[in-house]
């Protein structure tokens, strides 16, 4: 691994080592570009991943405080932890379920397709769908996605057999064991999935793609990557020319450091990315960096989520097997007759007995609650993941009440759900109930799900008109030529697909652009 000087103003500084930042680091370093990668968390490994679920949660999760408000569930049930993100090398690619559907054509034209929806700030993506799919296919190859790029699907687990039988009863035609970035055969130097059911705790086999053991070590092998762990970026600085030129961060000892930079790419996940831009206000950029449009932190999307868990007469043993290897695509369409704009996926999901009541069951206690838990052996689960609509006031701001360990205001997350989101969740849970009943469910319960958002999008969105967002079609700040955003913050709208695959696709595309612009001395 390389060591770059703090005063080296030729390096690209990337903030965050997850799907976007980790992939970008690999792509730039393999082109000979020197990169300093700042990661706030520690470095785990397949060997160090805990397999005790609540220990694993603490090992990987971003537990620094946040605050929240609005009428969405997390503000009530989990106000200090409204989003479930990772703080570790590899970011959320350590704990993700690895579900990788594609963004649909019409979703990249959300404003044109849905028309004007009151109370939203819908726009179209500034990238043509064909272009996005070109890079999505490259991402699928890289991540060894099942059912894509010539990879077989995963074999059906018990939990999936229930979902599949129910889906067929409902009349769904596009149900299968999923597109997942989990090896269905050994390849890419990684083994095949052995159906552990411990995806979320960190895959000890490395069968599930994570930048922790793919992109990052490959970037290190180029000799161009300087990965600095436990290094929390606190401010991006700029010169009198308005270009960014350094990143200030706290190192593992809490000491302040300043790394000079030729360009800066922010990939801290949509909440922290927005926070960092807002924290970097200056005399020249009084509302925060890249925020002349006042759009940094706005249009925050987190997907419409909902869990459905059912008990049956006979055993399912849902904890055995890959957590999310099952997908129904039939509802991922735009059909206004259903009473809402946009679509959703029905996805397989399982839970260990300890996480189930915290993550997936509705509020309750007493005999009724306990009697449902008694059916744990005979339980199956599904969830919906759908497109939520952007709203200007659903946004990340700097907390007025709470500061972090460095004395900086934490992120405040405000969300008021749009009626469209509520209608979609109701439809999705109705359909999920039919799926479960189709397989013979005895008792079905629904919840909004782990009262935390895991997909965080839109807070520095790409837009053709600079007034609508923060970045252009390359994730480059409209205001600052050598400042990039390289995570889900750039999504113009949320689409229904779990976002990681598209984040990787956009990072692959962005890396080509950055390297081209550096070669031609535009940055």
């Amino acid at each position, binding site marked *: 691994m390389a060591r770059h000087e703090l005063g080296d103003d030729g390096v690209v500084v990337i903030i965050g080592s997850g799907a976007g930042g980790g992939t970008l680091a690999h792509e730039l370093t393999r082109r000979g570009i020197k990169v300093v990668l700042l990661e706030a968390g520690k470095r785990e490994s397949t060997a160090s991943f805990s397999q005790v679920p609540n220990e694993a949660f603490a090992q990987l999760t971003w537990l620094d405080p946040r605050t929240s408000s609005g009428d969405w569930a997390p503000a009530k049930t989990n106000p200090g932890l409204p989003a479930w993100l990772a703080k570790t090398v590899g970011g959320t690619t350590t704990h993700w379920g690895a579900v990788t559907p594609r963004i649909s054509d019409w979703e990249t034209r959300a404003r044109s397709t849905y028309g004007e929806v009151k109370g939203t700030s819908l726009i179209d993506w500034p990238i043509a769908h064909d272009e996005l799919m070109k890079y999505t296919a490259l991402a699928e190859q890289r991540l060894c996605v099942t*059912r894509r790029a010539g990879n077989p699907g995963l074999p*059906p687990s018990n939990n999936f057999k229930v979902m599949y039988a129910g889906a067929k009863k409902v009349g769904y035609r596009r149900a299968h064991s999923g597109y997942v970035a989990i090896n269905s*055969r050994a390849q890419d130097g990684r083994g095949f999935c*052995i159906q552990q059911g411990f995806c979320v705790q960190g895959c000890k086999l490395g069968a599930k793609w994570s930048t922790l053991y793919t992109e990052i070590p490959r970037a290190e092998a180029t000799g161009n990557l300087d990965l600095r762990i436990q290094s929390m970026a606190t401010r991006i600085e700029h010169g009198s020319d308005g270009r960014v030129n350094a990143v200030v961060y706290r190192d593992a000892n809490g000491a302040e450091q300043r790394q000079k930079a030729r360009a800066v790419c922010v990939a801290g996940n949509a909440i922290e990315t927005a926070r960092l831009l807002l924290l970097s206000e200056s005399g020249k950029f009084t509302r925060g960096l890249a925020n002349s449009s006042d759009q940094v932190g706005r249009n925050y999307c987190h997907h419409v989520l909902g869990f459905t868990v059912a008990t049956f007469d006979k055993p399912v*043993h849902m904890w055995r097997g890959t957590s999310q290897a099952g997908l129904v695509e039939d509802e991922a369409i735009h059909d206004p007759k259903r009473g809402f704009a946009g679509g959703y996926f029905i996805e397989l999901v399982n839970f260990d007995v300890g996480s189930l009541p915290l993550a997936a069951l509705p509020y309750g206690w007493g005999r009724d609650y306990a009697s449902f838990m008694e059916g744990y052996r005979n339980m199956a689960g599904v969830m919906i993941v759908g497109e939520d609509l952007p709203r200007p006031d659903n946004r990340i701001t700097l907390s007025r009440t709470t500061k972090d360990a460095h004395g900086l205001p934490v992120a405040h997350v405000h969300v008021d759900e749009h009626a469209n989101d509520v209608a979609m969740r109701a439809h999705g849970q109705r359909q999920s109930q039919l799926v479960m009943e189709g397989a013979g469910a005895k008792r079905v319960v629904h919840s909004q799900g782990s009262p935390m958002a895991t997909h965080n999008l839109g807070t520095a969105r790409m837009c053709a008109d600079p007034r609508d967002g923060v970045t252009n079609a390359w994730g480059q700040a409209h205001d600052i030529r050598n400042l990039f955003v390289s995570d889900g913050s750039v999504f113009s709208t949320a689409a229904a697909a779990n976002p990681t695959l598209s984040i990787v696709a956009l990072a692959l595309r962005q890396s080509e652009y950055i390297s081209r612009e550096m070669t031609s001395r535009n940055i």
Partner: protein
Amino acid sequence: MSSTGFADRRGFLKVTGVLTGYLAVGSPLALLAPSRAWALDLAAFTGGQGATLMAAARTLLPHDGLEDAAYAAVVRSADADAARDPAVLRLYTDGITSMGAGFATAGEEQRVAALKKIEPSTFFQLFRVKALSVLYSTPFAYAYFGYEGEAFSKGGYLHRGFNDLRWLPEVPPADGGPMPDAGS
């Protein structure tokens, strides 16, 4: 009882109370423990307060076949929180008082009624989440609910029943996928 660590703080912490009990004869954990008797030293609560919380945990999540030692684990965790933070201790002691004298020995109907009365309180909501997060993660709960836990060291469930469900039709190959190690 080394597997539950109940006694691991004895000797270096001030003991404010103690909870004791026996593992059920048929308990799978009884095979692993050096003795069926267990004792939980409390560092913040009195024995009476501990017994009240244990009864509250059982009222919140009543599994008749799940032994007291599992519910005692909830008390142990709450006790540790209270020992660390005087504000938490005050929240708990006030909450325990609010459940009323005799709660620990009252019948289930009365206990439920007493908890319903304080359901909106911060104490109740805190303790409900505490009970959920501790009880179902104990080795007792794993055994009771049939959850098999960590699987990596055993080769996953690939050849240990991930697809052993036979009461529904099999998924056609096109919508599933092959066993990864078949024929290779």
